[in-house]
């Protein structure tokens, strides 16, 4: 799972279907074959049961169903669109250790409002439920379905390289094609496309603007900040006095969620994870979004505590984000240019009394504002040491 999130960024938006087909075909085939042999040996449940359960899950069975397929709400693989429902794999993991009765109860007699609404009118035989559970158990053992292959870009790049080489050879030596513009155009096109790929990747190198990885809990800032109006500092308590803003400890979540056990969007499933973490003592491993390189020493305290910056000026409209994402590109240029524009609280913060000369100049009217850069905010050793 670790690198899957990165691959999303590497996938080109203009992928040729052809390549997808070939590569997908090549990659998925062996996985299927391998999976079969493993499951036969390791389970008492027959492969046929698992297969049948899969068909049910994917909506191929029963033939005349009136409700939606499981898979239409419970994703089989990560998607780009927001899906509040637990994914198939999450379900599989959750119910792996529970028996069929619990599973049946969860599916057929749902408890929360959201689930009740969506699980209405299910017509499923116990046997079929057993098959579905077998399928899910199988999935939980095997891990989630593999994500899409990652090296299209490289293939395209190499392909372009071939075209380019051929066009060059043709232009210079072979001269088989009558119309000279054909190799020239091919050359320029291929070269341009390659250059574009290199440049975009080079720019993206180390930048993660709009990075929005999947989190272990579908925690929505839009709900908590936007709808509920919780202050940032309620959860990120140390932002104004420590370098790190701090992730809320699970017991902080429990302040509210000791009562609130069901969400409007996600139902009970996601909140149950917090409660579980609280009970078992296993911390939640969030995926870090705002990653600065390790030679950068950023301090929230000085920006929030001393400079009184608004969180949104760097983190953006968090109150609108269901899936938290990186708002700013966090490049050095971004930092430095902000320091060039941002005024400091020069007269009111007693720390700046040290800057006697600047105060004199200000009094004399030689300068009217002091910006962060004037007090050395763009020195190397403000952030790198």
């Amino acid at each position, binding site marked *: 799972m670790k690198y899957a999130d990165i691959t999303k960024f590497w996938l080109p938006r203009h992928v040729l279907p052809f390549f997808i087909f070939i590569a997908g075909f090549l990659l998925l085939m062996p996985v299927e074959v391998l999976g079969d042999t493993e499951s036969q040996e390791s389970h008492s449940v027959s492969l046929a049961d698992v297969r049948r359960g899969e068909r049910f899950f994917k909506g191929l069975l029963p033939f005349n169903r009136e409700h939606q397929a499981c898979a239409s709400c419970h994703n089989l693989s990560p998607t780009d669109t927001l899906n509040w429902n637990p994914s198939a794999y999450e379900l599989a993991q959750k119910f792996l250790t529970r028996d069929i009765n619990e599973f049946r109860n969860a599916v057929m007699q749902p408890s929360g409002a959201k689930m009740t609404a969506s699980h209405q009118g299910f017509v499923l035989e116990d046997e079929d439920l057993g098959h579905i559970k077998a399928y899910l158990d199988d999935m939980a053992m095997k891990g989630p379905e593999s994500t899409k292959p990652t090296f299209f870009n490289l293939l395209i790049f190499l392909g372009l390289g071939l075209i380019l080489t051929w066009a060059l050879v043709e232009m*210079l*030596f072979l001269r088989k094609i009558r119309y000279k513009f054909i190799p020239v155009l091919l050359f320029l096109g291929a070269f341009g496309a390659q250059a574009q790929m290199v440049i975009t990747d080079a*720019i993206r190198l180390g*930048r993660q603007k709009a990075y929005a990885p999947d989190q272990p809990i579908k925690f929505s800032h839009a709900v908590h900040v936007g709808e509920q109006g919780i202050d940032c500092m309620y959860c990120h308590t140390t932002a104004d006095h420590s370098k790190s803003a701090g992730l809320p400890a699970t017991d902080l979540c429990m302040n509210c969620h000791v009562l609130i056990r069901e969400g409007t969007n996600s139902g009970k499933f996601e909140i149950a994870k917090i409660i579980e973490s609280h009970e078992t003592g296993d911390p939640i491993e969030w995926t870090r979004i705002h990653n600065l390189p390790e030679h950068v020493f950023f301090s929230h305290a000085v920006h929030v505590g001393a400079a009184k910056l608004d969180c949104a000026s760097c983190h953006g409209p968090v109150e609108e984000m269901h899936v938290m994402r990186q708002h700013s*590109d966090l*490049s*050095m*240029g*971004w930092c*430095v*240019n902000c320091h060039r524009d941002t005024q400091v609280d020069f007269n009111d913060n007693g720390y700046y009394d040290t800057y006697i000369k600047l105060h004199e100049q200000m009094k004399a009217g030689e300068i009217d504002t002091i910006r962060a850069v004037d007090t050395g905010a*763009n020195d190397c050793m403000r952030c790198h040491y």
Partner: protein
Amino acid sequence: MIYKTEIRGPLIQGDKSFSQISREILAPIDAKTPMWWYFAMATSLGMLGFGLYCIYLTLANGIGSWGLNNSVGWGWAIVNFVWWIGIGHAGTAFSIFLLILRQQWRTAINRAAEAMTVVAVMCAGLFPLLHMGRPWLFFYIFPYPNTRGPLWVNFNSPLFWDFVAITAYILISASFWYFGMVPDFATIRDTTKSKIKKAVYGFFAFGWTGSSREWLRYEGLSFVLGGIAAVLVVSVHSIVSTDFAVGVIPGWHTTIFPPYFVIGAIFSGFAMVLTLVTIMRGAYKMNDFITDSHIDAVCRVLIFISLIMGTAYMTEIFMAWYSGSIYEYSIIFESRMFGDYAFQFWAMFVANAVVPQLFWFKAVRKRILIVFLISIIINIGMWFERFNIVITSLSRDYLPANWANYSPSWVEVGIFIGTLGLFTAGVLMFFRYIPMIAISEVKSVAKYNKPQTTHQTGHHE
């Protein structure tokens, strides 16, 4: 214009027709490759391979695989860099200064000198890259717009000047050399019988035909390049010298360095040219083009430069005493002349300032073997000069607590051997695949030398 004088003798010996000139100069390209060439090439490639292995070790393990330390931060790599750059000066200096001075005898030699320049500068260019702690980040030195603010470079740094100068020098000397060869490539294209050669040389000839329009612009181009490259010859090594002269280290911080370096560069360059042309004469029987008088002329130039070098050394010694700076005095007298590095100093002094004085004797100038040996000695002497400048100054600077001696590790030596291999391989390639002497230029000086024969077949082979 005087093409043939009583004093100098004819520029080309043996009455040769234009066609003969072409054949003879192109003979090494057309003929079967001699065995010694393969042998020499294999040796060079072996040296190069060893060098590449040492480069691999350096890149894989870090600069720590060299013999440097906290006090002596630059060692053989920089010594070799300056040395190669110096050698690389000869080509341009030869072509340009002699062009400006209207010395027509240069025509027989300048191609070889320029080729040598290009290969030597390539060898030199390797070192600044290799001696970096993180060579994969060398692009930081380009002032390009970036996402860091943008963070530019430091225009005050001699290393940045150096970087610009070396880049300029390698590009300019290579294009100068290449455009000089274009008409000759056309000659090969039109005279060769091999189809492959015709295609390859035809490609490199850029469609040259020798029309008056081409020659007209070609002359204009030569004029421009000649003019500005003359500035370059002086500026590049002056800038290399600022790598040291701008430093605050005693033994480096001196204003004599720019002219001293330029002269030194020309000195080592001419010596290397001498080495090369004596080999050309010996190996390829080019005696008719590179005549005794050519050798003689280079030798005379070397006497002159050697005297300047001697003066420079004496000046340094004098200034170390006269300036009254205890640090300078200590470097020159206690470290260089009579200290741990006395051998290197005296090797430099004798090889550069004393030995070339033998050229005063005509008997010496006439004996090609001795000339060849002296040219090698000068090259070694110039290497020691760079060693003296770089290392003795660093190892005995201001605070005696930091004094530390330096000796190279075998990896460093291996890289130097590798560049020697690269140089000889490049020169051998040049012998084999490129006309060693500028045919069109030789023809232009040969024109009044030659009887008016009409039927020259010129197929001597």
